[in-house]
Every structure is written in C-alpha cells, then in structure tokens.
C-alpha cells in the first residue's frame, strides 16, 4: 500500500474539527457507469433543470469549455480555447505523471475522514489548466450533480494556472429535486503560478437533506492573484468548509467573497483563511451572511501575516431575518511580524428599524422595504472580475433570491 493510502486509511474515522459529524457508512458510491456525451448540449434533458441557477449554461454561450459530472460519472469535458485543458481527474492522472506532485500537496490526505474518503473512495473530479500565458476569454464551467439518493460523491479537483495565464471558472453544484440524503465531499487544490490569475466562482444549490464538506486550498506564487466567489442561496442540511489560501509569492493576492443566504434549518459553517507569507502579499475577505427561519450560520475568517509589510482586511456582515436564526461571526487576525497591517469589521444584527421606516416613508410596505434592504446587503462589490462574469453572479443572486423571498 502506498504511503498516501496508508495515511488515508489511518484517518478513515477521524472526526473533522468543525461541523456536525456525519456517519459515512450510510452512503454508497453514486453510479459511475453513465455514458459519456460529446458535449454539454448532449447531456440528458432531465439534468438541465438542476443546471439553472448555478451558472451552468447548456448553450455554452460565453463559455470557454465545460465539465459535467453526474454522481460518479464524468459525462463530458470539453474546451473551446487553445491552451485551456479540462479533463476528468482520473484521465488526467493517467495522462500526466507529474500530476502526482499536485495531488494532496496543499490539503493533507489525513485531515479528516472526508479527505480520507476522497482518496480511498474517489468518485471523480476535474483537472483544469491554463497553459503558460494563456488567458481564458470566457469562463470555463464545471458542474457537479448528485442524482441518486443515499450516495456519496467524493471528488478531487486540481486547478492550475501556469505562469502568466488567466483562468476563470464557474463551478455549479446541485442535486436532483428528489434527493433526500446524500453527501458531497470535494477536495480542490489550486495552483496560481507566477503572475497568473484564477477567479473561481462556486455556486451551491443543494437540497435540504444534503451534507457538503469541501476541503480546499490554494497556493499563490509571485504576482499571482486568486479570487474566490462563493454563493450559497438554497437550503442544505449541513455544510462546512474553511479553505486556506497560501500567499507565498512576492506581491501575491487572495480575495474571498462569500454570499450565504441560509433558510429552513440549514447548518452552514463557512470561512476563509489566508496566510500571508510572501513579501508584499495582501488579502481581502468579504462575507455577507443572511440567516432566515431556524438556520444557523457560522462565518469564520482568519488572516495570518508572517512577514512584515503585508496587508489584510476581513469584513463580515450578517443579517438575521428571523427570531430563531443565528449567526456567529468569528474573525481572527494573527500578526506574527512587525509592520503587518491587518484589520477586521464585523456586524451582525437584524434589519435596522430606521432603514425600514425610511423606505416606508417613500411608500414601500414593510416587506418590500426589507426585501430592498436585503438585496442591497447582498450587493457586494466584486472586484477584479470580467464584466460578464460579474453580471452572471448578480443575476444568480437575484434569481435565487426571488425564488426565496
């Protein structure tokens, strides 16, 4: 048995530090024998509904390529631009010997039982790469879909932006409407090489009984930029994720924008961690959390500055829309060198009565006023994205919000 497998075996039953524990024995592997199709437009119609609201466009208008995985089967992986690669992870491992160096380098295989299962019982994932100097004109889209009940989907994704390249990715995750209970485990390791840039927009649209455990990390080299946008606007049973970005390169940048709209009795624990160890590196972590019904949201943020001259800002705003909901904001700053500029702002509360009153004096009802304020609250200025991608994100937020309010 390889060293890696041994470590994974050792962590088979290791509880995670955060999030409610899940008994993984309840689930079996989702089917891995669906027939592949030549392109996303050939994906069976029955899945198309699930693609709505997660930024996945079957027409591939304004997209540089597509990856679709349903349960444990990769249905298609295509690119429309020279120099961009999209492959199923297993195919990629077979194709490139060097890929081994990228697997489990940023995330430890023995972190917890979830990473362990991603190694021991892999059900797929993607490999996306922009070759040296290649800039993706349109974003690539990737879709992870769970269509079978009581199954697990354990994926491992590797994303590489080679030197001077630019990669924009929209990943949408969804489940069939009938899904009662399933689990998605996603290990994602991002490599932003020198002066490269990755923007990664993840839209989650799970079902009320689905558990989700992403385990992600990013390495950003000199002059590299990593922008992460996370949007979750639909109910989920429990979701816990705390990606870590390592800004090791000189003047590297990591940006995290998270928008969570928790409803029903969703238990959501999301955060972003950034380690600034490269000279002149910087980060900005912005989150907007809304908790409705009897949902519970924990919003974490952690910035460590380990060399002098680095800068980081953490901004966490939470809005409570019901008596029974709760939001717990945990911002952490750790300055371990001189001249480190780290700051945070956190504000959690109900919609201000004064604000509702003001809009009512302009003629809105109390509900309309609240809706407008909530919409404004979610209107985060997402910097550094191509215009059409920004519009796409705004549209997603708006449509999912309309269906919930």
């Amino acid at each position: 048995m390889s060293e890696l497998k041994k470590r994974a075996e050792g962590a088979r039953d290791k509880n995670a530090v955060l999030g409610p524990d899940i008994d993984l024995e309840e689930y079996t592997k989702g089917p891995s024998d669906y027939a592949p199709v030549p392109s996303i437009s050939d994906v069976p119609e029955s899945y198309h509904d699930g693609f709505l609201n997660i930024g996945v466009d079957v027409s591939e208008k304004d997209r540089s390529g597509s990856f679709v995985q349903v349960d444990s089967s990769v249905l298609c992986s295509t690119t429309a631009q020279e120099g961009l690669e999209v492959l199923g992870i297993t195919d990629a491992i077979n194709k490139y010997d060097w890929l081994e160096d990228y697997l489990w380098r940023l995330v430890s295989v023995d972190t917890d039982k979830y990473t362990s299962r991603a190694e021991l019982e892999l059900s797929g994932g993607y490999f996306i790469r922009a070759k040296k100097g290649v800039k993706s004109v349109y974003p690539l889209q990737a879709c992870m879909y769970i269509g079978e009940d009581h199954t697990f989907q354990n994926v491992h994704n590797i994303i590489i932006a080679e030197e001077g390249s630019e990669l924009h990715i929209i990943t949408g995750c969804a489940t069939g409407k009938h899904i009662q209970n399933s689990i998605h485990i996603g290990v994602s390791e991002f490599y932003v090489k020198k002066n490269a840039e990755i923007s990664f927009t993840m839209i989650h649209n799970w079902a009320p009984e689905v558990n989700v455990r992403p385990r992600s990390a990013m390495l950003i080299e000199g002059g590299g930029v990593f922008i992460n946008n996370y949007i979750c606007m639909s109910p989920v049973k429990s979701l816990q994720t705390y990606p870590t970005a390592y800004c090791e390169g000189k003047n590297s940048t990591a940006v995290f924008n998270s928008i969570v709209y928790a409803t029903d009795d969703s238990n959501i624990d999301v955060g972003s961690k950034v380690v600034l160890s490269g000279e002149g590196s910087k980060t900005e972590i912005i989150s907007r959390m809304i908790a409705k019904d009897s949902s519970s949201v924990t919003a974490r943020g952690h910035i460590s500055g380990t060399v002098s001259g680095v800068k980081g800002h953490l901004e966490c705003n939470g809005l409570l829309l019901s008596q029974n909901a709760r939001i717990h904001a945990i911002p952490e700053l750790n300055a371990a060198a001189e001249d480190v500029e780290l700051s945070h702002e956190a504000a959690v509360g109900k919609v201000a009565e004064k604000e509702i009153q003001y809009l009512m004096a302009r003629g809105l009802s109390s509900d309309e006023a609240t809706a407008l304020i909530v919409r404004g609250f979610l209107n985060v200025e997402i910097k550094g994205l191509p215009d059409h991608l920004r519009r796409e994100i705004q549209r997603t937020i708006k449509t999912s919000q309309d269906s919930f309010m």
Partner: protein
Amino acid sequence: MLLIEDLTVEVGNKRVIEGLSLHIPEKETHLLFGPNGSGKTSLIMAIIGAPSYKVIKGRIIFKDVDVTDLPTNERVKLGMGVAFQMPPVIRGVRLKDVLRIHTESLSKGGVMDQMNKMGLSAQFLDRDINYGFSGGEIKRSELLQLMFQKPEFTMFDEPDSGVDIENMEVVGKALGELLEGRSGLVITHMGYILKYIKATKAHVLIDRSIRCSSDPQAIFKQIMECGYGRCVECLS
C-alpha cells in the same frame, strides 16, 4: 388637510409631544419653529407614523381619514411625504433604487433634468443612499426623491440647515415647486428659505407642545431679535 387633536407621543419611554393640536388647511403651508430638542422632529415622525414614536393620546386626521393607527406606507399612499432631517444610510441600496419606487424608468430624460436642477451629478444615482453624502447633499437628495414622489402634503425637517448660500436658492426653489398649490409643514431655524415659501402661519413648539401660532413674518422677526427666551417669557 391635516388635523391633529390633543396629541401625546412617547419614544423610548420619553414623552416628546404632549397635548399638541394643529390644523393645516388644504393648500396651506405652515412653518414650525422651536429650540433644539423641543420635539419638532418627533412631531413629524408621529405624523408619518414611525413605529418607535408611540401615540399615547390624541388623533391624527389626514384628508378626513383617521391615520393614527395606519402604517407609514398607507399614509404615504394617502399623500404624505417627508424630507428627513437625518435620514439613515442604507448600505447597498442606491439612490436610484429609491428613486425607482416613484419613477418607472431612470433612463428617461426627466431624472437627469431633476438631478441637474438639484445640483447632483449622475454619479449620485449609483451611490449607496446617504452614505458619505455631505450635509447639503443629503438635503438635496431628500428633495430630489420628493420631486418624483410629489406628495400632496410634504413635511420638511430643516431643509435649509447646513446648506450654503448658493445651494440655498436650489433648495428654496425646490420647496417652492413642491409646495405650489399643495400643502406642507416646514421646520426651519433660518430666514433665507422664507422668501421661497408662501407660508400662511407659523407655530412655535417649546417643551413638547405648540405654545404660539401667528403670522410667519412676525414670529420669525421676534425669534431673530429675542430668541426663544422671549417666547417663553411671553408664555409665562
């Protein structure tokens, strides 16, 4: 238009209006004077129906409808409007979002014309409402919103405070336009604005109630010369 009978109002267990009565007939504009903290803003808040301003006693009749227990937006529907003294900042809600409540399309020429008239550049449309607005900009943004709302009865809470001489004319003309052929109540500490408004009556609010009502020019002259101290004397 507006009839207030024996009104008593509390906010946060503090009595801010007590036994106040006021009548503003149709197509009339009245002025409201009074020292800081006397209860002027509280009166406006009670008339528009802010929930934290609790009516303990009395009634507010607007256009023959008893609005004492109506929610704010219902009163607005009946024709009330307010230019607030200290409107709140609402992050993420832009001025244009609020203007859209009263105007279908912002791209139509009208909006820019009105903005020019109010001395507000197009950039204001995309700014979070009241966020980082200067004192004078807040006043002009409030008036701009009312230009589209066109209330039959408008209350202005110190529309001229903190406004410079040049903008005073802008603000004054806007008030004149909003009140032309309609009704209103204007709170002010200063005289510049008076020449733009055809006020028929002025009231002095001291210590939670209206203590004196008379000709606007006469009352203003008196306050300018002797301050509110004289009003208190006159009352005792």
